[in-house]
């Protein structure tokens, strides 16, 4: 079975049943379960998440994208400092970047103050971190490939001949 095909389907719909997956991929259910387990075990599948528009809830939430300039260490490169940043639960995503600054950090917090405290007291003082630029998210238009509040097109196909 083509792992990539299975992954692409799961990426779009993690809730799909094993039976439907088996039918779609033209495989046996057992085979699907086996491959899925292996991919989970090998951390190819790292989790099954839900895309939520938090703006529509009454839950306070602020997001920021922080550019972090960092110093590399001999023998370790950026991996050590990256792991130190990644361990904070506030950090949602972390990337090593090309360009002016080394890291891009996505942060979730309840308030701007909370994020400011995190940057000032946790992130900036870390060993290896040289400087930070904090950019607060003002509004989300698209998350994980989903355009928020996009008008859903009904099936607009007409009755035609032939």
């Amino acid at each position: 079975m083509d792992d990539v095909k299975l992954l692409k389907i799961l990426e779009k719909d993690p809730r799909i049943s094993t039976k439907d997956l088996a039918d779609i991929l033209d495989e046996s259910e057992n085979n699907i379960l086996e491959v899925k387990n292996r991919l989970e075990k090998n951390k190819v599948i790292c989790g099954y998440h839900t895309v939520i528009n938090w703006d529509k809830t009454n839950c306070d939430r602020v997001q920021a994208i922080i550019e972090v300039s960092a110093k590399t260490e001999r023998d370790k490169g950026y991996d050590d400092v990256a792991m130190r940043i990644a361990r904070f639960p506030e950090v949602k995503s972390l990337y090593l970047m090309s360009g002016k600054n080394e890291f891009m950090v996505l942060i979730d917090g309840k308030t701007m103050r909370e994020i400011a405290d995190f940057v000032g007291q946790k992130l900036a003082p870390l060993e290896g971190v040289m400087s930070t630029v904090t950019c607060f998210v003002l509004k989300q238009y698209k998350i994980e490939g989903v355009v928020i509040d996009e008008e859903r097109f009904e099936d607009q196909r007409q009755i035609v001949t032939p």
Partner: protein
Amino acid sequence: MSRYLNKKIQMIAPSGIRKFSEMAAGVPGVISLGVGEPDFITPWHIREEAIYAIEKGRTYYAPNLGLPELRQEICNYYQRRFGCSYDWQRQCLVTVGASEAIDLCMRTMLDPGDEVILLSPCYVAYTPSVQLADGVVRYVNLKEEDHFKLTPEALEAAITPKTKMLFLNFPSNPTGGIMSKEDYAKLVPIIKKHDLVVLSDEIYAELTYDGHFCSLASFKEIKDQVIILNGFSKAYAMTGWRVGYILADSDIIKAMIKIHQYAIMCPSIISQYAAIEAARNGDNDCVIHKESFMARRNYVVNNLNRIGLECHMPQGAFYVFPSIKKTGLSSEDFCEKLLFEAKVAVVPGSAFGESGEGHVRISYAYSIEQLKEALSRIEKFLKQFA
């Protein structure tokens, strides 16, 4: 006022698909699996190009052959994807969908009484387009056990001294059957020997699933005899734009222009600009659409076999053509009963010719959710025949 109508038009029967879609439209809560068009919206980069053309005031007539840039891109595309080379200046004509192309071919090539070999079951427009051009239709009945391929024996048996044209359509609507390079290779000597003109409707070329699409024009020894019909509708989900094309020998294109320029002049120039973008930058759209259809094909075929409507795995297009013979009903009766009792609309196989009898055409250009609901309704419906 029908006394004024000409005899030819009175002889043409109404389309079997239309009859059913109209009947289905009157049933509340119906799920229709009858539509022969992709459910995708045209990819945004293609739509955006049309908007840009309008903004730039590109709203004039296009040249009769089609925009030069579009013809170049079409020829590049056929070379890149299928290895067939055509001269964009003399061997390519842009039409209003492949539908115009079919009509154009018939009217350009046929003399009254010329015989055209059609494969049965076939797309519903083929027979009338031959008749309207005063041609005579001879059917070759394709068999399910051959996976609806055309065999050399069947072709040879259908040829008479009057045969001028062979009309092929692979991947096929309604059967989803395909012809591989090896399958075609067996036909090539026969086509050569009898000097047939072959119309190859390749509109579903990009929807070939488990192998690579083979164009009949890739056989050099008969390339001059082949007329390729294709278009942007199915591969790029551009049905409403109405852009098709013909690739053929320059003498044939030159003759077709005589009809095309007076009857049509040119397809919408806005659509042609969109089509340039599709042909130039749309290869990936074809892949995305194909993968999505393939998933749904597997889903439908596996479920149909499970609930007792047997069918093989079709290799192309977006239709399955299961047999309903074990219900003891005719195709039409089955479809009517299914529509009114289970509220699912499919098209009777008989609409595609006599040899479609005993089958139904199910289009799977629908979301998995819609297919799931339709299949569960069909399953319940089938219990009465168990």
